[in-house]
């Protein structure tokens, strides 16, 4: 390595309340390189990046940027040094225009001291066009899709002359085509000599986009290697510290009685336009069966699950029967009483109450069983929760810790514990493995197999096709609210699913 790297972090140590989050971690990023940082949740990736972004100060170690030692005390120090962060939760101001967002905090001024809107518009238009995302920069940021908003973030970073951009799971909210466009932009950035530190849990992405990979585990540096010299099995072994023989355990499908039958279900879109989010969907789910739902963004898969759970009130049309008995579910409470559970696709905004403790989150949907009528007794609550916390091996310092302090995988387990506690017979799982590490993923697959073996039925949505193919007994494909294909396990391929998901 003759060339001095753009960024060199060495011997980074950080502990919180006496718990080591990082121990002697190093990372070096070359100019114009896409460098993936991978590891299980809780491995220390986020802490390392927060140190790089100036949000957290390090205990020990050095940061060298362009050959100069740096001390970041606050995010603005990092920003001034040319480091930009693009988080999962975007940091745009939704009602402000795209141009205002790009120049937020460093608005150009006219000679009279007023904000120079013309210059702002011109520059931001140029930046976005360069990123291949031309758009009307005078419209508010919230008017655009997440994908475009991400481009606005990138433009904001470039506008600040950042030459090191950290992207933390940027594709977790993107559809495949949008992700593809993001990769295109990342390649362009690389061409411009900008370096990108890329954090993702998706193996295909890591292999598709990165030049080198650094793996962290339990706060320690495990290794750095060019992506071409690191086969996937090896990478997973580095991440979890053991070989995962089979990421997707097989389950023997032995479908039993019919649990759920949906006929001609229609759901209107929330915007009141009268369009249908789900348009005449029909399906059946038997005991012991995992039925996968596939579709691109806007296909209506999530809305279908939400409607079954009573999330949108009365459905526009169609009928639902549980175990052959027709039901009309208009509220989540009724769905729970009918043995339906919905794990939503975003645990932070709809899955968990982040300000409450692990225990209180886990029992939230089962409080009627946690004490005498109307009351909650701590002992009963603990007794209720303990078996599920053990079964899912939720790792937390205490059940009284705020759930927000847990890693993504453990948060997801708490959300799952909440639903298993309601003793459902039908589980609606919307992206159950989004944003969690490979170890926790394997545990959740294992759990799904255990559940169907107990005679429960699962409707599964996942945007990761290998996962969908491996876990589902049958796959239903949706396009614009309509079912366009039903594929059996042995006839389903990625190509056939994509074809059905995109055609009309």
């Amino acid at each position, binding site marked *: 390595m003759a060339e001095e790297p753009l960024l060199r972090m060495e011997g980074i140590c950080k502990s919180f309340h006496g718990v080591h989050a990082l121990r002697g971690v190093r990372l070096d990023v070359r100019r114009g390189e896409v460098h993936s940082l991978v590891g299980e949740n809780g491995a220390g990736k986020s802490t390392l990046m927060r140190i790089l972004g100036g949000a957290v100060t390090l205990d020990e170690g050095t940061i060298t940027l362009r050959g100069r030692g740096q001390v970041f005390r606050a995010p603005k120090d990092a920003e001034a040094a040319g480091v930009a962060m693009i988080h999962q939760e975007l940091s745009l101001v939704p009602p402000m225009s795209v141009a205002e967002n790009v120049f937020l905090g460093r608005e150009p001024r006219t000679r009279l001291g007023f904000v120079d809107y013309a210059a702002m518009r011109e520059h931001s238009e140029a930046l976005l066009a360069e990123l291949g995302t031309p758009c009307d920069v005078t419209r508010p940021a919230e008017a655009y899709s997440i994908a475009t908003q991400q481009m606005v973030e990138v433009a904001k970073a470039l506008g600040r002359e950042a030459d090191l951009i950290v992207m933390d799971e940027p594709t977790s909210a993107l559809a495949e085509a949008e992700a593809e466009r993001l990769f295109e932009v990342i390649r362009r950035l690389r061409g411009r000599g900008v370096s990108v530190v890329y954090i993702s849990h998706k193996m295909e992405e890591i292999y598709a986009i990165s030049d080198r990979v650094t793996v962290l585990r339990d706060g320690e540096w495990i290794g750095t290697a060019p992506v071409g010299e690191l086969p996937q099995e090896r990478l997973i072994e580095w991440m979890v510290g053991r070989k995962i023989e089979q990421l997707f355990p097989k389950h023997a499908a032995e479908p039993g009685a019919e649990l759920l039958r949906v006929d001609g279900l229609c759901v209107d879109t929330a915007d009141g336009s009268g369009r249908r989010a789900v348009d005449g969907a029909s399906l059946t789910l038997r005991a012991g069966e995992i039925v996968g739902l596939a579709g691109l963004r806007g296909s209506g898969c999530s809305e279908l699950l939400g409607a079954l759970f009573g999330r949108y009130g009365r459905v526009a049309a169609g009928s639902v029967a549980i175990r052959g008995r027709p039901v009309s579910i208009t509220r989540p409470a009724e769905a729970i*009483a009918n043995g339906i559970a919905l794990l939503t696709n975003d645990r932070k905004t*709809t899955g968990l*109450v982040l*300000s409450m403790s692990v225990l209180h989150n886990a029992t*939230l949907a089962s409080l009627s069983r946690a*004490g005498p009528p109307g009351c909650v007794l*701590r*002992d009963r609550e603990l007794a209720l929760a303990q078996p599920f916390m053990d079964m899912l091996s939720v790792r937390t*310092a205490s*059940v009284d810790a705020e759930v927000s302090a847990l890693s993504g995988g453990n948060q997801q387990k708490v959300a799952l514990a909440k639903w298993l506690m309601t003793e459902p017979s039908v589980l609606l799982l919307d992206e159950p493995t989004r944003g969690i590490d490979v170890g926790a993923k394997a545990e959740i697959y294992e759990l799904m197999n255990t559940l169907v073996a107990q005679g429960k039925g699962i409707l599964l949505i996942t945007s990761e096709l290998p996962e969908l193919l491996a876990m589902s007994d049958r796959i239903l494909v949706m396009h614009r609210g309509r079912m366009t294909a039903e594929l059996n396990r042995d006839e389903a391929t990625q190509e056939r699913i994509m074809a059905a998901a995109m055609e009309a």
Partner: protein
Amino acid sequence: MDELRPGTEGPGSSSLARRALALAGEYRGPVALVVVLVVGILIGGRTPDGRPVFLTGSTHVSVFFEYAEYGILAAGMTLVILTGGIDLSVGSVLGLSSVIFAILTLGCGWSSQWAALAAAGVGAVCGLINGILISRLRFQPFVATLAMMVVARGLAKQVTGHRKIAPALDPWYHVRSLSEMPPIYKGMMSPLAKHGIAVTVLVVPALIIVAAAFFRYTVTGRALDARLFGSSPAGRTARATLSIGAWAIALGLTVWGLAPYLQPASFLFVSSLLLMALVVKVTRFGRHLYAIGGNEEAARLSGVPVARSKVLAYVLCGLFSGLAGIVTTCRLQLGNPEAGATYELDAIAAVVIGGTSLMGGRGSVALTLVGALIMGYANKILSNIQIHGQFLQDGAKLLAKGMIIVLAVLVQEARRRRA
């Protein structure tokens, strides 16, 4: 879950100090209250014989008494704020209920029980309207309760014809003179008994509290605790029963010991807060309030009856405003349509100083009691303090009060940021 707590560090003076500091951090509110009390003893004025007035029982009794309405309002306000809402109408509703109670007792000759029920009911109805506007018609709490604040005040002025309701002001009044006033007017404001039970009764609850602290926070205490009860379900139940029993005895004795000195108004203040603290901690309704304030959509998707819980929170808040209105009427010996103006701000301040987040989802009613007492004692200090022989004027008092609020919130924020 004691067995899941991270292990404590070994013995030693530094770790002991650290634990004490951590404990002080966790109980920041009570510690602040103690600080206020110490300040009160130091600068809160002296009796003619030279003793600090903060060391006399009557000072404490008067703080509870003077702050009663604010405290009662704060009890309901905490429930609403826990859901992430706010109720600006409590002061006006207090005024409305005050004049209704006065009209019914003084004007129409109703018995005080029925009049009290009606006045409290009016408060509850105002809360119900707030709740329905907010949860069913999706008004923002600020807007809905702002409207109610104006409407209730208008109604209070309308029904009284812009006058104060006092004995014998009008020919149709049932009560013609002060001496004819129903006994509740005097009773609400005078101590329950002239002869107190000895303060030594207070020693018992103090001992129980010290013992509880020993078991919970010291290494030997915890070891003893584990040996006594074990971790079997039966042992846990036994321990829970014993600890609930001990707290009940401590509470009962405190109340019994203080009863002779306190006025019913002060009792309403303390018991409203204690009752709501219990409701919030042990009922499903209480848990639902936290869930709604923390993440309303996640709560709804977990089967929490969001609309019903919110309505109930506002109804209770209105009910407490009604109760506070009755107390005010008895205190003033008349029904004043202007009563309670700006009281909502003091109630909100007590909640916030206690450490309940205005964003909802975090806090507790017990903390509000502490917040209310901090405000009450601070007021007492400000009215007792003398500079160059002069008492402080209202302007200076308000300035100081504002600074206390800012300071209290800064301290709470510092804690959250570090956490």
